[in-house]
């Protein structure tokens, strides 16, 4: 039985859009002989008991998560397919553990900030990258949900209201002057990522740079002049993780490049390490079409054994939405897994066949489902509320912003044009007369 590694689909010329999936891909290319495994860009989280990718499918068993996959491969091959087996020194093993956790705590927030939280990078680079990977209409749900998660993970860094940074700062400043807030009650603008990046010489960008340095300094010290992190000869699972995280730092071409610029100027050794790793493990640029169409013909020069995902189109969307709905139902969702299970033994979430069996019920209860869907859309199935300020709504909003009721209710974008069209033209004439008189 050939092992199937299911990952989030390719993006930015890398084999996956997700760091853990990239790490798992690079691990399998280096540990498991070609022909024993295939790579499936399914973007289907439901196959994994952890409801997250990467997931390794071996017949009926499914293993979720990078670390679990490593352990499973180790067991299955009696220690043959185990990259860390070369490092018998317990000091090295401890380092692998510690630096893996270091990457998770330091690299993940930076990637979150760069690819998801910063509005410009998200709308111009990340969100479009998801579009070819996901069937309609899931590309409207999944990227915002991942963005909301990224925001919640970076909250503690104190860079509030980052999603607002597309609004030109000067524009907002000018509006503030014209709005109604008395001088004594005006508050300072919150900081945004682009604001920090714009102040190139200011001490503010320093904060982002410190985060990058805190990530790179120990890694760079560990790498030294070696080819891999622990030796010149063989890579470890840590090499794969570093590659997974840092390739997403260096490869995507984002409009706000602060992360990449800092890496390239300050940590050239790591950049070189990642670039050669990308070449070695992923074989250069990956095209989305190759990955989605599959590559059973073993073309020469192709590094990755892609296989087309069986689940495409409507069926996939149905499953994704079904799982999404179940996850938002209060009493129904089960977030804690007490035993390692594969989806077949998961009693709570119906497997695809079960969900098709349930379809007639849905059809008979259309109204009930509509109510549920309404609730779900309202209560955050989209995952992200457009947290905009009233002052961004022009002067009318500025008046209410001046009263400062705390956070404004999330407003939908569609309301704006409506209001514009319904301009009460007579009103302003009255006002002008009043002022003269």
């Amino acid at each position, binding site marked *: 039985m050939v092992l199937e590694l299911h990952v989030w689909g390719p993006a930015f010329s890398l084999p996956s859009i997700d760091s853990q999936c990239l790490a798992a891909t690079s691990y399998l290319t280096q540990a498991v002989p070609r022909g024993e495994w295939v790579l499936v860009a399914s973007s289907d*989280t439901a196959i994994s*008991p*952890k*409801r*997250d990718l990467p997931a390794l499918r071996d017949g009926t068993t499914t293993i*979720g*998560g990078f*670390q679990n996959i490593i352990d499973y491969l180790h067991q299955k091959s009696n220690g043959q397919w185990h990259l860390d087996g070369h490092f018998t020194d*317990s*000091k090295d*093993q*401890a*380092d692998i*553990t*510690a*630096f893996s*956790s*270091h990457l*998770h*705590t*330091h690299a993940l927030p930076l990637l979150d900030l760069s690819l998801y939280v910063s509005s410009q990078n998200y709308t111009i680079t990340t969100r479009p990258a998801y579009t070819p990977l996901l069937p309609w209409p899931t590309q409207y749900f999944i990227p915002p949900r991942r963005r909301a*998660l990224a925001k*919640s*993970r970076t909250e503690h860094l104190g860079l509030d209201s980052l999603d607002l940074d597309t609004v030109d700062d000067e524009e907002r400043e*000018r*509006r503030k002057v*014209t709005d*109604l807030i*008395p*001088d*004594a*009650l005006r508050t300072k603008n919150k900081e945004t990522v682009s604001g920090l990046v714009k102040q190139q010489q200011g001490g503010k960008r320093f904060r982002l740079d410190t985060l990058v340095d*805190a990530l790179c*300094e*120990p890694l760079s*010290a*560990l790498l030294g002049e070696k080819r891999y992190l622990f030796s010149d000869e063989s890579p470890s699972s840590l090499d794969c993780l570093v590659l997974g995280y840092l390739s997403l730092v260096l490869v995507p071409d984002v409009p706000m490049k602060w992360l990449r610029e800092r890496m390239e100027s300050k940590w050239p050794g790591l950049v070189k390490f990642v670039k050669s790793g990308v070449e070695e493990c992923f074989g250069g640029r990956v095209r989305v079409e190759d990955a989605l169409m599959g590559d059973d013909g073993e073309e020469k020069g192709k590094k990755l054994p892609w296989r087309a995902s069986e689940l495409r189109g409507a069926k996939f969307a149905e499953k994704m939405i079904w799982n999404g709905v179940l996850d938002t139902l209060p009493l129904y969702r089960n*977030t*804690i*897994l007490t*035993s*390692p299970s594969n989806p077949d033994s998961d009693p709570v979430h119906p497997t695809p066949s079960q969900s098709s069996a349930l379809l007639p019920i849905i059809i008979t209860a259309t109204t009930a489902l509509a109510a549920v869907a309404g609730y779900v859309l309202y209560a955050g199935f989209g995952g992200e509320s457009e947290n905009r300020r009233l002052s961004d709504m*022009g*002067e*009318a909003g500025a*008046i209410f912003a*001046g009263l400062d009721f705390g956070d404004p209710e999330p407003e939908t974008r569609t309301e704006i*044009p409506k209001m*514009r*069209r319904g*301009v*009460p*033209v007579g*009103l*302003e*004439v009255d*006002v*002008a007369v*009043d*002022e003269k008189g």
Partner: protein
Amino acid sequence: MPQDANAAPEEKPKPRAKAQPKNSSWPWFTTPQPIKRLFDKFPLETYGQNELPQRTAQHRDQHALYVFTTDNGARRGAPSFNPGCLKWQAYLKFRNFSFITISSNNHASPDGALPFLLPSASSSTFPDAPPSPVPSNRIQRWTRDTIAKRKGISNASGLSRQQSEHGAAPAESRTSKEEDIAPTDPSDMRYEAYMSLLDHWIRNAYLYSLYLSPPNFDSIAFPLYIAPSTTNTLVRITLSHQLRAAAETELLKQSARIEVVAIHQESDKAFAALSELLGDDEYFFGEKKPGLFDASVFAYTNLLLDEGLDWRDTRMADGLRGYRNLVAHQKRIRQTHFR
């Protein structure tokens, strides 16, 4: 209008009134001047700061650390039952500060989280103004500054005393002893990496063990965090629910599902790595005196190994007991600094 031919109709509302600010993107509505003038007068009067209530001024001659602890524990200076608080409590003890602990909760803190430190009245730079509280993320800097300041003063006074007479008072010998323990937290490349083990894997496992593992929640978290704050059953149920939901949300940020077996495996690996790092040394990184890293490790190990706490789901503690040097490290600190 020919000049508007290529502009979208919505983007070109016809400007009409003369009294508008030119650049406004919403030119159809301006604020009436009288109202604008009226609101410009606000606030009508700004009052000065309120004085602190009388009852806060009890122990102003000593530094006070506000932590989660029981009233009895506060009096004895017992270790806090919250790892975040215990870390800084231990750190301040390592740096030889004398302070009292005060039982408190998150609502009391200026930044919404315990611990925080209220320096003694005498340590304030301005004698009249009360010293401002130090939140936990600044405590390290505060200790460094305070020690540096004290060092500067004792150097100056030492000089003047040397000029007058040579007899050194016992108090002075004590300050010079404190100087020797100037905070030198090592800049080893492994420091950050191993610190992240505590902030990530061990913290996750701890959150799970304490809040989400039902027997432990009932036997530890409930009596320590919820029972003291209220006797009302309904409020207790709500608080328990909130606490558990907060822990669950925190863990779900890391992965879409909380995998209990994986969480315990990871904490086991993390303890193995820490044990390897400690080796046969007394304190981490071969230091002679314990530092912030030791405080961070002790914060978790002490709680897990504390016999006063009724751990029912002991998987995490059992994992820890397998590493003898970590257990010895906890005992050593407990005996030296928390007698």
